[in-house]
Protein backbone atom coordinates (compact mmCIF):
# COMPACT_ATOMS: atom_id res chain seq x y z
CA UNK A 1 0.00 0.00 0.00
CA UNK A 2 1.48 3.27 -1.13
CA UNK A 3 1.01 6.30 1.00
CA UNK A 4 1.36 9.70 -0.58
CA UNK A 5 3.01 11.54 2.28
CA UNK A 6 2.71 14.87 0.61
CA UNK A 7 -1.01 14.40 0.39
CA UNK A 8 -1.19 13.26 3.97
CA UNK A 9 1.08 15.99 5.26
CA UNK A 10 -1.63 18.14 6.87
CA UNK A 11 -3.00 15.22 8.82
CA UNK A 12 0.47 14.16 9.79
CA UNK A 13 1.40 17.62 10.98
CA UNK A 14 -1.74 17.84 13.05
CA UNK A 15 -1.15 14.39 14.45
CA UNK A 16 2.37 15.41 15.33
CA UNK A 17 1.05 18.51 16.97
CA UNK A 18 -1.21 16.38 19.09
CA UNK A 19 1.81 14.49 20.30
CA UNK A 20 3.76 17.65 20.93
CA UNK A 21 0.96 19.19 22.89
CA UNK A 22 0.55 16.02 24.87
CA UNK A 23 4.25 15.91 25.60
CA UNK A 24 4.41 19.54 26.54
CA UNK A 25 1.43 19.11 28.77
CA UNK A 26 3.21 16.38 30.57
CA UNK A 27 6.60 17.98 30.91
CA UNK A 28 5.81 21.64 31.46
CA UNK A 29 5.15 23.05 34.90
CA UNK A 30 1.71 24.45 35.48
CA UNK A 31 2.81 28.04 35.13
CA UNK A 32 4.20 27.40 31.67
CA UNK A 33 1.24 25.49 30.32
CA UNK A 34 0.47 28.31 27.93
CA UNK A 35 3.10 26.79 25.72
CA UNK A 36 0.59 24.10 24.86
CA UNK A 37 -1.66 26.75 23.37
CA UNK A 38 1.24 28.15 21.47
CA UNK A 39 2.18 24.73 20.15
CA UNK A 40 -1.38 23.99 19.09
CA UNK A 41 -1.76 27.28 17.24
CA UNK A 42 1.60 26.91 15.61
CA UNK A 43 0.93 23.31 14.66
CA UNK A 44 -2.27 24.26 12.90
CA UNK A 45 -0.52 27.08 11.10
CA UNK A 46 2.13 24.68 9.89
CA UNK A 47 -0.52 22.21 8.81
CA UNK A 48 -1.85 24.84 6.45
CA UNK A 49 1.43 24.95 4.53
CA UNK A 50 1.18 21.56 2.84
CA UNK A 51 -2.31 22.52 1.79
CA UNK A 52 -0.79 25.35 -0.19
CA UNK A 53 1.92 23.20 -1.70
CA UNK A 54 -0.67 20.63 -2.62
CA UNK A 55 -2.90 23.25 -4.17
CA UNK A 56 -0.13 24.60 -6.32
CA UNK A 57 1.40 21.22 -7.08
CA UNK A 58 1.46 20.27 -10.73
CA UNK A 59 1.01 16.62 -9.89
CA UNK A 60 -2.17 14.65 -10.14
CA UNK A 61 -5.36 16.59 -9.38
CA UNK A 62 -6.59 13.82 -7.26
CA UNK A 63 -4.37 11.72 -5.06
CA UNK A 64 -5.99 8.48 -4.17
CA UNK A 65 -4.85 6.11 -1.48
CA UNK A 66 -5.98 3.01 0.38
CA UNK A 67 -7.85 1.55 -2.48
CA UNK A 68 -9.76 4.73 -3.20
CA UNK A 69 -10.91 5.05 0.37
CA UNK A 70 -8.84 8.13 1.05
CA UNK A 71 -8.60 10.80 -1.59
CA UNK A 72 -6.98 14.21 -1.59
CA UNK A 73 -8.59 16.26 -4.31
CA UNK A 74 -9.66 19.90 -4.62
CA UNK A 75 -12.75 19.28 -2.54
CA UNK A 76 -10.71 17.75 0.23
CA UNK A 77 -8.13 20.52 0.08
CA UNK A 78 -10.67 23.32 0.21
CA UNK A 79 -12.58 21.76 3.06
CA UNK A 80 -9.41 20.97 4.93
CA UNK A 81 -8.43 24.59 4.56
CA UNK A 82 -11.77 25.59 6.03
CA UNK A 83 -11.30 23.23 8.94
CA UNK A 84 -7.78 24.35 9.62
CA UNK A 85 -8.51 28.07 9.35
CA UNK A 86 -11.71 27.65 11.36
CA UNK A 87 -9.89 25.62 13.96
CA UNK A 88 -7.11 28.16 14.05
CA UNK A 89 -9.58 30.95 14.69
CA UNK A 90 -11.26 28.95 17.43
CA UNK A 91 -7.91 28.37 19.07
CA UNK A 92 -7.17 32.08 18.90
CA UNK A 93 -10.45 32.80 20.60
CA UNK A 94 -9.84 30.11 23.15
CA UNK A 95 -6.54 31.39 24.45
CA UNK A 96 -7.75 34.25 26.57
CA UNK A 97 -10.96 32.45 27.44
CA UNK A 98 -9.18 29.35 28.66
CA UNK A 99 -6.50 31.31 30.45
CA UNK A 100 -9.02 33.19 32.45
CA UNK A 101 -10.67 29.95 33.46
CA UNK A 102 -9.36 27.81 36.29
CA UNK A 103 -9.25 24.53 34.42
CA UNK A 104 -6.51 22.49 33.01
CA UNK A 105 -5.34 24.04 29.76
CA UNK A 106 -3.32 21.30 28.17
CA UNK A 107 -6.06 18.84 27.48
CA UNK A 108 -8.25 21.54 25.99
CA UNK A 109 -5.89 22.10 23.10
CA UNK A 110 -5.21 18.42 22.81
CA UNK A 111 -8.87 17.61 22.41
CA UNK A 112 -9.50 20.51 20.11
CA UNK A 113 -6.86 19.61 17.57
CA UNK A 114 -7.81 15.97 17.79
CA UNK A 115 -11.28 16.95 16.73
CA UNK A 116 -9.81 19.05 13.92
CA UNK A 117 -7.78 16.07 12.82
CA UNK A 118 -11.02 14.11 12.60
CA UNK A 119 -12.53 16.69 10.32
CA UNK A 120 -9.45 16.60 8.10
CA UNK A 121 -9.85 12.87 7.80
CA UNK A 122 -13.52 13.23 6.93
CA UNK A 123 -12.80 15.60 4.07
CA UNK A 124 -10.65 12.96 2.43
CA UNK A 125 -12.66 9.88 3.29
CA UNK A 126 -14.21 8.06 0.40
CA UNK A 127 -15.52 5.01 2.15
CA UNK A 128 -17.93 4.37 4.97
CA UNK A 129 -15.32 3.20 7.44
CA UNK A 130 -13.02 6.18 7.07
CA UNK A 131 -15.97 8.49 7.14
CA UNK A 132 -17.21 6.91 10.31
CA UNK A 133 -13.81 6.99 11.95
CA UNK A 134 -13.34 10.60 10.99
CA UNK A 135 -16.75 11.51 12.28
CA UNK A 136 -16.16 9.88 15.62
CA UNK A 137 -12.77 11.54 15.84
CA UNK A 138 -14.51 14.85 15.42
CA UNK A 139 -17.25 14.13 17.92
CA UNK A 140 -15.52 12.19 20.64
CA UNK A 141 -13.26 14.98 21.87
CA UNK A 142 -16.15 17.37 21.65
CA UNK A 143 -18.17 15.42 24.19
CA UNK A 144 -15.34 16.04 26.58
CA UNK A 145 -14.81 19.63 25.55
CA UNK A 146 -18.47 20.41 26.10
CA UNK A 147 -18.00 19.25 29.66
CA UNK A 148 -14.66 20.90 30.01
CA UNK A 149 -15.71 23.08 32.90
CA UNK A 150 -15.84 20.15 35.15
CA UNK A 151 -17.13 21.95 38.20
CA UNK A 152 -19.90 23.68 36.35
CA UNK A 153 -23.16 21.78 36.39
CA UNK A 154 -24.31 23.41 33.22
CA UNK A 155 -21.22 22.29 31.45
CA UNK A 156 -21.71 18.75 32.76
CA UNK A 157 -25.26 18.80 31.65
CA UNK A 158 -24.31 20.08 28.24
CA UNK A 159 -21.80 17.29 27.86
CA UNK A 160 -24.15 14.58 28.97
CA UNK A 161 -26.97 15.65 26.73
CA UNK A 162 -24.61 16.01 23.85
CA UNK A 163 -23.13 12.64 24.58
CA UNK A 164 -26.34 10.68 24.91
CA UNK A 165 -27.84 12.10 21.78
CA UNK A 166 -24.49 11.85 20.06
CA UNK A 167 -24.15 8.14 20.65
CA UNK A 168 -27.78 7.62 19.77
CA UNK A 169 -27.15 9.31 16.47
CA UNK A 170 -23.97 7.33 15.99
CA UNK A 171 -25.90 4.13 16.56
CA UNK A 172 -28.58 5.10 14.09
CA UNK A 173 -25.96 6.20 11.59
CA UNK A 174 -24.11 2.97 11.95
CA UNK A 175 -27.23 0.91 11.65
CA UNK A 176 -27.94 2.72 8.41
CA UNK A 177 -24.38 2.27 7.24
CA UNK A 178 -24.48 -1.43 8.02
CA UNK A 179 -27.40 -1.79 5.66
CA UNK A 180 -25.75 0.39 3.06
CA UNK A 181 -22.83 -1.95 3.15
CA UNK A 182 -24.98 -5.03 3.40
CA UNK A 183 -27.21 -4.22 0.48
CA UNK A 184 -24.50 -2.96 -1.85
CA UNK A 185 -21.73 -5.25 -0.73
CA UNK A 186 -19.28 -2.39 -0.67
CA UNK A 187 -18.05 0.14 1.81
CA UNK A 188 -16.47 2.46 -0.72
CA UNK A 189 -18.60 5.23 -2.15
CA UNK A 190 -17.54 4.09 -5.57
CA UNK A 191 -18.94 0.66 -4.95
CA UNK A 192 -22.14 1.94 -3.36
CA UNK A 193 -22.65 4.34 -6.25
CA UNK A 194 -22.51 1.52 -8.74
CA UNK A 195 -24.86 -0.72 -6.82
CA UNK A 196 -27.34 1.90 -5.72
CA UNK A 197 -29.52 2.33 -8.83
CA UNK A 198 -30.61 -1.26 -8.72
CA UNK A 199 -31.66 -0.91 -5.11
CA UNK A 200 -33.54 2.33 -5.42
CA UNK A 201 -36.91 0.72 -4.83
CA UNK A 202 -35.84 -1.43 -1.93
CA UNK A 203 -37.40 -0.42 1.36
CA UNK A 204 -34.40 -1.59 3.30
CA UNK A 205 -32.13 0.51 1.18
CA UNK A 206 -34.26 3.55 1.71
CA UNK A 207 -34.19 2.88 5.41
CA UNK A 208 -30.42 2.62 5.26
CA UNK A 209 -30.09 5.93 3.44
CA UNK A 210 -32.48 7.64 5.79
CA UNK A 211 -30.78 6.36 8.93
CA UNK A 212 -27.45 7.52 7.60
CA UNK A 213 -28.84 10.95 6.86
CA UNK A 214 -30.36 11.11 10.33
CA UNK A 215 -26.91 10.48 11.72
CA UNK A 216 -25.55 13.45 9.84
CA UNK A 217 -28.68 15.42 10.59
CA UNK A 218 -27.59 15.29 14.21
CA UNK A 219 -24.24 16.81 13.35
CA UNK A 220 -25.68 19.60 11.25
CA UNK A 221 -28.39 20.24 13.87
CA UNK A 222 -31.20 19.74 11.43
CA UNK A 223 -34.65 19.92 12.97
CA UNK A 224 -35.86 17.56 14.50
CA UNK A 225 -32.40 16.27 15.39
CA UNK A 226 -31.34 19.53 16.87
CA UNK A 227 -32.66 19.26 20.41
CA UNK A 228 -29.29 18.88 21.99
CA UNK A 229 -27.84 21.95 20.37
CA UNK A 230 -29.31 24.85 22.37
CA UNK A 231 -28.59 23.30 25.73
CA UNK A 232 -25.15 22.13 24.74
CA UNK A 233 -24.24 25.43 23.12
CA UNK A 234 -25.36 27.26 26.18
CA UNK A 235 -23.62 25.04 28.64
CA UNK A 236 -20.34 24.47 26.85
CA UNK A 237 -17.48 26.94 27.06
CA UNK A 238 -18.08 29.57 24.40
CA UNK A 239 -15.08 28.75 22.18
CA UNK A 240 -16.20 25.14 22.17
CA UNK A 241 -19.65 26.26 21.18
CA UNK A 242 -18.09 28.26 18.38
CA UNK A 243 -16.29 25.17 17.22
CA UNK A 244 -19.42 23.05 17.55
CA UNK A 245 -21.42 25.46 15.45
CA UNK A 246 -18.77 25.77 12.79
CA UNK A 247 -16.20 22.97 12.73
CA UNK A 248 -18.33 20.10 13.79
CA UNK A 249 -21.28 21.28 11.78
CA UNK A 250 -19.17 21.72 8.68
CA UNK A 251 -17.88 18.20 9.21
CA UNK A 252 -21.48 17.06 9.19
CA UNK A 253 -22.09 18.80 5.91
CA UNK A 254 -18.95 17.30 4.46
CA UNK A 255 -20.27 13.88 5.40
CA UNK A 256 -23.64 14.65 3.86
CA UNK A 257 -22.07 15.93 0.67
CA UNK A 258 -19.89 12.87 0.36
CA UNK A 259 -22.81 10.58 1.02
CA UNK A 260 -25.16 12.34 -1.37
CA UNK A 261 -22.79 13.26 -4.16
CA UNK A 262 -20.25 10.50 -4.01
CA UNK A 263 -22.17 7.50 -2.79
CA UNK A 264 -25.80 8.08 -3.64
CA UNK A 265 -26.06 10.39 -6.62
CA UNK A 266 -28.31 7.93 -8.36
CA UNK A 267 -31.01 7.87 -5.72
CA UNK A 268 -31.79 11.52 -5.31
CA UNK A 269 -35.44 10.58 -4.98
CA UNK A 270 -34.64 9.26 -1.52
CA UNK A 271 -32.42 11.90 -0.01
CA UNK A 272 -33.78 14.86 -1.98
CA UNK A 273 -37.19 15.00 -0.33
CA UNK A 274 -35.69 14.13 3.03
CA UNK A 275 -33.33 17.03 2.93
CA UNK A 276 -36.10 19.25 1.55
CA UNK A 277 -38.11 18.51 4.66
CA UNK A 278 -35.16 18.92 6.97
CA UNK A 279 -34.21 22.21 5.32
CA UNK A 280 -37.69 23.65 5.56
CA UNK A 281 -38.13 22.52 9.16
CA UNK A 282 -34.73 23.74 10.23
CA UNK A 283 -35.11 27.16 8.69
CA UNK A 284 -38.60 27.73 9.92
CA UNK A 285 -38.41 26.32 13.41
CA UNK A 286 -34.90 27.57 13.98
CA UNK A 287 -35.85 31.10 13.06
CA UNK A 288 -39.16 31.18 14.84
CA UNK A 289 -37.62 29.81 17.99
CA UNK A 290 -34.71 32.20 17.83
CA UNK A 291 -37.22 35.05 18.00
CA UNK A 292 -37.90 34.23 21.63
CA UNK A 293 -34.38 33.95 22.94
CA UNK A 294 -32.93 36.27 25.51
CA UNK A 295 -29.55 34.65 25.78
CA UNK A 296 -27.11 35.48 23.04
CA UNK A 297 -25.57 32.03 22.94
CA UNK A 298 -28.90 30.30 22.88
CA UNK A 299 -30.00 32.68 20.19
CA UNK A 300 -26.93 31.85 18.18
CA UNK A 301 -27.72 28.18 18.69
CA UNK A 302 -31.12 28.55 17.09
CA UNK A 303 -29.69 30.88 14.49
CA UNK A 304 -27.15 28.25 13.62
CA UNK A 305 -29.92 25.66 13.34
CA UNK A 306 -31.65 27.97 10.88
CA UNK A 307 -28.42 28.65 9.02
CA UNK A 308 -27.97 24.90 8.81
CA UNK A 309 -31.38 24.79 7.19
CA UNK A 310 -30.27 27.33 4.62
CA UNK A 311 -27.22 25.23 3.85
CA UNK A 312 -29.44 22.19 3.35
CA UNK A 313 -31.52 24.03 0.75
CA UNK A 314 -29.18 23.46 -2.22
CA UNK A 315 -29.26 19.71 -1.57
CA UNK A 316 -32.94 19.78 -2.37
CA UNK A 317 -32.15 21.62 -5.59
CA UNK A 318 -29.72 18.97 -6.71
CA UNK A 319 -32.26 16.30 -6.01
CA UNK A 320 -34.78 17.36 -8.62
CA UNK A 321 -32.45 17.63 -11.54
CA UNK A 322 -30.13 15.41 -13.51
CA UNK A 323 -28.41 18.37 -15.04
CA UNK A 324 -24.76 18.21 -13.93
CA UNK A 325 -24.61 21.99 -14.01
CA UNK A 326 -27.43 22.25 -11.51
CA UNK A 327 -25.84 19.69 -9.24
CA UNK A 328 -22.47 21.34 -9.42
CA UNK A 329 -24.00 24.69 -8.70
CA UNK A 330 -25.77 23.26 -5.68
CA UNK A 331 -22.53 21.78 -4.40
CA UNK A 332 -20.80 25.06 -5.03
CA UNK A 333 -23.53 26.93 -3.17
CA UNK A 334 -23.19 24.63 -0.18
CA UNK A 335 -19.46 25.13 -0.05
CA UNK A 336 -19.73 28.91 -0.44
CA UNK A 337 -22.27 29.00 2.33
CA UNK A 338 -20.15 26.82 4.56
CA UNK A 339 -17.07 28.95 4.02
CA UNK A 340 -18.82 32.26 4.62
CA UNK A 341 -20.86 30.87 7.46
CA UNK A 342 -17.70 29.62 9.14
CA UNK A 343 -16.20 33.07 9.22
CA UNK A 344 -19.25 35.04 10.17
CA UNK A 345 -20.45 32.65 12.82
CA UNK A 346 -16.99 32.39 14.36
CA UNK A 347 -16.91 36.17 14.34
CA UNK A 348 -20.28 36.29 16.06
CA UNK A 349 -19.04 33.94 18.76
CA UNK A 350 -15.90 36.03 19.07
CA UNK A 351 -18.14 38.99 19.76
CA UNK A 352 -20.00 36.92 22.34
CA UNK A 353 -16.74 36.12 24.07
CA UNK A 354 -15.64 39.72 23.97
CA UNK A 355 -19.03 40.97 25.10
CA UNK A 356 -19.15 38.47 27.92
CA UNK A 357 -15.70 39.54 29.03
CA UNK A 358 -16.86 43.09 29.10
CA UNK A 359 -20.24 42.74 30.71
CA UNK A 360 -19.92 39.39 32.42
CA UNK A 361 -23.18 38.29 30.89
CA UNK A 362 -24.55 36.76 27.75
CA UNK A 363 -28.09 37.94 28.35
CA UNK A 364 -29.03 40.20 25.47
CA UNK A 365 -30.52 42.83 27.73
CA UNK A 366 -27.29 43.19 29.63
CA UNK A 367 -25.57 44.20 26.43
CA UNK A 368 -27.77 47.23 25.97
CA UNK A 369 -26.00 50.36 24.88
CA UNK A 370 -22.73 48.56 24.50
CA UNK A 371 -21.53 50.95 21.85
CA UNK A 372 -21.21 53.61 24.49
CA UNK A 373 -18.55 51.80 26.42
CA UNK A 374 -17.20 49.28 23.93
CA UNK A 375 -17.76 50.75 20.53
CA UNK A 376 -15.49 48.35 18.74
CA UNK A 377 -17.24 45.29 20.08
CA UNK A 378 -20.54 46.87 19.11
CA UNK A 379 -19.32 47.56 15.59
CA UNK A 380 -18.07 44.01 15.23
CA UNK A 381 -21.33 42.71 16.64
CA UNK A 382 -23.27 44.65 14.04
CA UNK A 383 -20.99 43.41 11.30
CA UNK A 384 -21.33 39.73 12.15
CA UNK A 385 -24.96 39.65 13.11
CA UNK A 386 -26.06 41.59 10.06
CA UNK A 387 -23.83 39.44 7.94
CA UNK A 388 -25.62 36.40 9.35
CA UNK A 389 -28.84 38.17 8.44
CA UNK A 390 -27.57 38.45 4.89
CA UNK A 391 -27.53 42.20 4.54
CA UNK A 392 -25.24 43.45 1.78
CA UNK A 393 -22.45 44.32 1.55
CA UNK A 394 -21.49 41.92 4.31
CA UNK A 395 -20.45 38.49 3.15
CA UNK A 396 -23.61 36.75 4.30
CA UNK A 397 -25.54 38.12 1.36
CA UNK A 398 -23.53 36.12 -1.09
CA UNK A 399 -24.07 32.90 0.82
CA UNK A 400 -27.81 33.44 0.74
CA UNK A 401 -27.64 34.64 -2.83
CA UNK A 402 -25.99 31.52 -4.18
CA UNK A 403 -28.32 29.46 -2.04
CA UNK A 404 -31.31 31.09 -3.76
CA UNK A 405 -29.58 30.83 -7.09
CA UNK A 406 -29.08 27.11 -6.70
CA UNK A 407 -32.59 26.39 -5.51
CA UNK A 408 -34.22 28.44 -8.24
CA UNK A 409 -32.23 27.05 -11.11
CA UNK A 410 -34.23 23.85 -11.52
CA UNK A 411 -37.54 25.15 -12.73
CA UNK A 412 -39.56 23.04 -10.38
CA UNK A 413 -42.50 23.78 -8.17
CA UNK A 414 -41.04 22.11 -5.10
CA UNK A 415 -37.75 23.89 -5.25
CA UNK A 416 -39.48 27.18 -5.92
CA UNK A 417 -41.66 26.57 -2.89
CA UNK A 418 -38.57 25.96 -0.82
CA UNK A 419 -37.11 29.18 -2.18
CA UNK A 420 -40.17 31.07 -1.00
CA UNK A 421 -39.95 29.42 2.41
CA UNK A 422 -36.30 30.43 2.53
CA UNK A 423 -37.15 33.99 1.52
CA UNK A 424 -39.75 34.32 4.26
CA UNK A 425 -37.31 32.88 6.72
CA UNK A 426 -34.62 35.27 5.65
CA UNK A 427 -36.96 38.08 6.63
CA UNK A 428 -37.94 36.50 9.95
CA UNK A 429 -34.28 36.03 10.76
CA UNK A 430 -33.75 39.75 10.37
CA UNK A 431 -35.93 40.42 13.34
CA UNK A 432 -33.74 38.77 15.88
CA UNK A 433 -30.46 39.77 14.32
CA UNK A 434 -31.67 43.33 14.15
CA UNK A 435 -32.79 43.02 17.75
CA UNK A 436 -29.23 42.39 18.86
CA UNK A 437 -28.11 45.33 16.79
CA UNK A 438 -30.85 47.39 18.35
CA UNK A 439 -29.94 46.39 21.87
CA UNK A 440 -26.27 47.08 21.45
CA UNK A 441 -26.73 50.35 19.67
CA UNK A 442 -30.03 51.91 20.51
CA UNK A 443 -30.99 50.93 24.04
CA UNK A 444 -29.74 52.80 27.05
CA UNK A 445 -27.08 51.19 29.18
CA UNK A 446 -28.86 49.28 31.94
CA UNK A 447 -28.10 50.17 35.49
CA UNK A 448 -25.51 48.03 37.16
CA UNK A 449 -23.39 47.58 34.07
CA UNK A 450 -20.50 49.68 35.17
CA UNK A 451 -17.56 49.97 32.83
CA UNK A 452 -14.94 47.65 34.19
CA UNK A 453 -11.75 49.53 33.82
CA UNK A 454 -9.54 46.48 33.94
CA UNK A 455 -11.36 44.21 31.56
CA UNK A 456 -10.50 45.00 28.03
CA UNK A 457 -12.89 43.06 25.86
CA UNK A 458 -10.55 42.73 22.94
CA UNK A 459 -7.36 41.11 24.03
CA UNK A 460 -4.53 39.96 21.79
CA UNK A 461 -5.47 36.74 20.14
CA UNK A 462 -9.21 37.31 20.35
CA UNK A 463 -8.74 40.66 18.65
CA UNK A 464 -6.69 38.94 15.99
CA UNK A 465 -9.40 36.34 15.41
CA UNK A 466 -12.08 39.00 15.21
CA UNK A 467 -9.94 41.07 12.93
CA UNK A 468 -9.45 38.19 10.53
CA UNK A 469 -13.11 37.24 10.49
CA UNK A 470 -14.26 40.85 10.14
CA UNK A 471 -11.88 41.47 7.29
CA UNK A 472 -13.07 38.36 5.59
CA UNK A 473 -16.72 39.22 6.08
CA UNK A 474 -16.14 42.65 4.63
CA UNK A 475 -13.92 41.56 1.77
CA UNK A 476 -15.97 38.53 0.80
CA UNK A 477 -19.04 40.72 0.75
CA UNK A 478 -17.52 42.93 -1.88
CA UNK A 479 -15.41 40.38 -3.70
CA UNK A 480 -17.32 37.18 -3.04
CA UNK A 481 -15.78 35.32 -5.90
CA UNK A 482 -12.20 35.90 -4.88
CA UNK A 483 -12.81 35.02 -1.26
CA UNK A 484 -15.31 32.22 -1.47
CA UNK A 485 -16.60 31.50 -4.91
CA UNK A 486 -13.32 30.45 -6.37
CA UNK A 487 -12.87 27.80 -3.69
CA UNK A 488 -16.34 26.53 -4.21
CA UNK A 489 -15.66 26.27 -7.93
CA UNK A 490 -12.67 24.13 -7.16
CA UNK A 491 -14.42 22.04 -4.61
CA UNK A 492 -17.43 21.18 -6.65
CA UNK A 493 -15.39 18.24 -7.90
CA UNK A 494 -17.18 16.43 -5.11
CA UNK A 495 -19.95 15.94 -7.63
CA UNK A 496 -17.52 14.06 -9.86
CA UNK A 497 -19.37 10.92 -9.05
CA UNK A 498 -22.34 12.03 -11.08
Amino acid sequence: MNLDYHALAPELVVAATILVVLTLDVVLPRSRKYWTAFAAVLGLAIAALPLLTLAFDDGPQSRSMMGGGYVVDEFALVLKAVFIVGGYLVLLMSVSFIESDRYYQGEYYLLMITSILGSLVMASSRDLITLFVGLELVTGPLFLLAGWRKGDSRSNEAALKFFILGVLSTAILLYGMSFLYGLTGSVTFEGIRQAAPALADSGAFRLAVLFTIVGFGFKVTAVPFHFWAPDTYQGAPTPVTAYLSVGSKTAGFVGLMLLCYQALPAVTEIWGPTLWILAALSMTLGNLTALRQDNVVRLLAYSSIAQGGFILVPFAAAAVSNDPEVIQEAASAIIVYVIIYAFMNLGAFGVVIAGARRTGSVEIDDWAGMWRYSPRVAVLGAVFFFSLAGIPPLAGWYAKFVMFLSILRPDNVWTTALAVIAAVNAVIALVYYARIGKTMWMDPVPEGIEPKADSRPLVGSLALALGITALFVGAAGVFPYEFAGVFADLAKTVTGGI
Partner: protein
Amino acid sequence: MVLTQFLVLGALMFSIGVFGLLSRRNAVTILLSVELMLAAVNINLVAFEAFWNTAAAHGQIFAIFVITIAAAEVGIGLAIILLVFRNRASGNIDELDLMRW
Protein backbone atom coordinates in the same frame (compact mmCIF):
# COMPACT_ATOMS: atom_id res chain seq x y z
CA MET B 1 -32.07 -18.13 4.83
CA VAL B 2 -29.54 -17.43 7.46
CA LEU B 3 -28.95 -13.75 6.69
CA THR B 4 -32.50 -12.77 7.44
CA GLN B 5 -32.44 -14.31 10.84
CA PHE B 6 -29.32 -12.36 11.75
CA LEU B 7 -30.85 -9.19 10.49
CA VAL B 8 -33.99 -9.81 12.51
CA LEU B 9 -31.86 -10.39 15.55
CA GLY B 10 -30.00 -7.18 14.84
CA ALA B 11 -33.23 -5.27 14.38
CA LEU B 12 -34.61 -6.64 17.63
CA MET B 13 -31.50 -5.71 19.54
CA PHE B 14 -31.54 -2.28 18.01
CA SER B 15 -35.15 -1.78 18.97
CA ILE B 16 -34.52 -2.94 22.50
CA GLY B 17 -31.68 -0.50 22.64
CA VAL B 18 -33.89 2.35 21.46
CA PHE B 19 -36.58 1.41 23.93
CA GLY B 20 -34.10 1.25 26.74
CA LEU B 21 -32.67 4.58 25.80
CA LEU B 22 -36.06 6.18 25.84
CA SER B 23 -37.44 4.56 28.92
CA ARG B 24 -34.55 4.44 31.35
CA ARG B 25 -33.61 7.28 33.55
CA ASN B 26 -30.31 6.07 34.79
CA ALA B 27 -27.45 7.32 32.69
CA VAL B 28 -25.49 4.10 32.95
CA THR B 29 -28.46 2.06 31.80
CA ILE B 30 -28.82 4.39 28.88
CA LEU B 31 -25.20 3.82 28.04
CA LEU B 32 -25.85 0.12 28.09
CA SER B 33 -28.78 0.53 25.76
CA VAL B 34 -26.58 2.36 23.31
CA GLU B 35 -24.08 -0.43 23.50
CA LEU B 36 -26.89 -2.79 22.65
CA MET B 37 -27.65 -0.77 19.55
CA LEU B 38 -24.03 -0.79 18.51
CA ALA B 39 -23.92 -4.51 19.05
CA ALA B 40 -26.89 -4.81 16.72
CA VAL B 41 -24.90 -2.92 14.12
CA ASN B 42 -22.02 -5.29 14.55
CA ILE B 43 -24.28 -8.30 14.10
CA ASN B 44 -25.53 -6.78 10.88
CA LEU B 45 -22.05 -6.05 9.64
CA VAL B 46 -20.74 -9.46 10.34
CA ALA B 47 -23.79 -11.14 8.88
CA PHE B 48 -23.51 -9.13 5.70
CA GLU B 49 -19.84 -9.87 5.51
CA ALA B 50 -20.61 -13.52 5.68
CA PHE B 51 -23.25 -13.06 3.04
CA TRP B 52 -20.99 -11.29 0.56
CA ASN B 53 -17.92 -13.17 1.58
CA THR B 54 -15.44 -10.95 -0.23
CA ALA B 55 -11.71 -11.04 0.14
CA ALA B 56 -11.49 -7.50 1.40
CA ALA B 57 -13.53 -8.39 4.47
CA HIS B 58 -14.80 -4.85 4.78
CA GLY B 59 -17.63 -5.84 7.01
CA GLN B 60 -15.39 -7.31 9.60
CA ILE B 61 -13.00 -4.42 9.48
CA PHE B 62 -15.93 -2.11 9.94
CA ALA B 63 -17.15 -4.13 12.87
CA ILE B 64 -13.76 -3.96 14.52
CA PHE B 65 -13.70 -0.22 14.14
CA VAL B 66 -17.15 -0.01 15.61
CA ILE B 67 -16.13 -2.09 18.60
CA THR B 68 -13.06 0.02 19.16
CA ILE B 69 -14.82 3.26 18.90
CA ALA B 70 -17.72 2.05 20.99
CA ALA B 71 -15.23 1.29 23.70
CA ALA B 72 -13.82 4.77 23.44
CA GLU B 73 -17.25 6.24 23.57
CA VAL B 74 -18.14 4.31 26.63
CA GLY B 75 -14.99 5.64 28.21
CA ILE B 76 -15.96 9.16 27.38
CA GLY B 77 -19.51 8.56 28.46
CA LEU B 78 -18.57 7.12 31.79
CA ALA B 79 -16.23 10.02 32.37
CA ILE B 80 -19.02 12.48 31.77
CA ILE B 81 -21.50 10.55 33.85
CA LEU B 82 -18.97 10.41 36.65
CA LEU B 83 -18.58 14.15 36.42
CA VAL B 84 -22.28 14.69 36.62
CA PHE B 85 -22.57 12.25 39.47
CA ARG B 86 -19.81 14.01 41.34
CA ASN B 87 -21.45 17.39 40.99
CA ARG B 88 -24.98 16.27 41.67
CA ALA B 89 -24.79 12.95 43.44
CA SER B 90 -27.32 11.54 41.02
CA GLY B 91 -27.22 9.60 37.83
CA ASN B 92 -30.76 10.44 36.93
CA ILE B 93 -30.75 12.30 33.68
CA ASP B 94 -34.24 13.60 34.18
CA GLU B 95 -32.87 16.03 36.70
CA LEU B 96 -30.80 17.76 34.08
CA ASP B 97 -32.88 20.78 33.33
CA LEU B 98 -30.77 23.73 34.30
CA MET B 99 -31.10 25.24 30.90
CA ARG B 100 -34.78 24.88 30.59
CA TRP B 101 -35.67 28.42 29.83
